[in-house]
């Protein structure tokens, strides 16, 4: 049997490609969802907003938010341990300007077992709001919100230990829009 290095260059290239493809697949399965395939929607959308608060900026936020300011102190506490906040929002002038395949390309990344769709989440706004949690055993490693309206498509992806309650407190801050998501009410014996 020939060793790998005795193979023709074409075979080596194919192996290298497969290794790289495998690496990308693994990356896509983490709590950070890939939003690049929605870039083309910016040409159709009337307004596009792309907020990226990566780990470096979250560490920066921990430095710049003032403990003496109640609002900032709360945000500082909420972002502790987070690794990234990514928001992509598209607004359109006409209904259904985006294709179902665009939404499906996001949903395809939010499949079980890596992701768990949370049920019984209500939205005050029109349209459909889906909330997903990325789990690693009992630990939450990320959260994704997919808000699909006829003229608006919004994806929020928070990487790190975050739950629905934390999300609702972060709404309106750090580029996270007010999605109208309500945290599940705690039972009496949990309070």
């Amino acid at each position, binding site marked *: 049997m020939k060793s790998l290095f005795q193979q023709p260059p074409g075979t080596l290239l194919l192996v290298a490609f497969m290794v790289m493809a495998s690496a990308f697949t693994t990356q896509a399965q983490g709590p950070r969802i890939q939003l690049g395939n929605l*870039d*083309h929607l*910016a*040409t*159709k*959308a*009337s*307004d*596009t*907003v*792309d*907020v*990226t*608060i*990566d780990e*470096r*900026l979250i560490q*920066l*936020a921990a*430095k*710049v*938010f*003032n403990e003496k300011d109640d*609002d*900032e102190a709360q*945000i500082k506490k909420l972002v502790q341990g987070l690794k990234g906040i990514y928001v992509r929002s598209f607004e359109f*002038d006409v209904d259904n300007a985006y294709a179902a395949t665009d939404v499906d390309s996001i949903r395809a990344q939010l499949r079980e077992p890596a992701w768990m769709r949370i049920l019984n989440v209500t939205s005050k706004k029109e349209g459909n709001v889906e909330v997903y949690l990325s789990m690693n055993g009992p630990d939450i490693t990320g959260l994704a919100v997919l808000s699909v309206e006829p003229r608006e498509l919004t994806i929020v992806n928070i990487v790190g230990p975050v739950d629905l309650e934390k999300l609702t407190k972060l709404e*309106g*801050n*750090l*580029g996270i829009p007010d999605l109208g998501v309500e945290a599940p009410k705690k039972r009496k014996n949990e309070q």
Partner: protein
Amino acid sequence: MKRATLVQVAAILLIVSFTANVGQAINDDFSSVVKMIEQYYNVKHEGLSFLAKAAMKAVGTGAKIKGGTARQLAEAGSIRLATFEDQDFNGDFLKFRSSLNDSLKDTWTPLVQTISSENAEQSYIFVREKGDKFSVLIVMIEKREGTVVQATVSAKSLALLMKDPEEGAKTIREEATIVDNE
């Protein structure tokens, strides 16, 4: 060492020092971004005759970053600004965004980027640490004009911008338009 040799060494050191400073000025990110815009859109940024207006725009934009206290920002002492007036910014904005992000990815962190295809408006805000302060690099492009601002801001200013980056970007863009109309 002979006096002539000493003079030669001094001259070489002076040339090396001068070249290094020029190189730094040419290769910094602000200049690179301005040059990139010029090349991509085939436009030219304003010369010295527009400095007064540019300074006015910088203070206005800075005021918004600071949440209304331009004086403090000015005291930070490092506002760099380039404006592009009355020129056509025709081009694929997705390709431009990609080129801009690629050129700054190693030295700046993108915070917020907005595109309004209807009005052909683009705004980009990048941040990075600079000692105990922070640098903000803002690129705004509209149909007929563009602005590049680099400013040093305090932690408080950055906190305001981070708390509501989308609104911050909109405010900066609107402020630039208001100043233009004055």
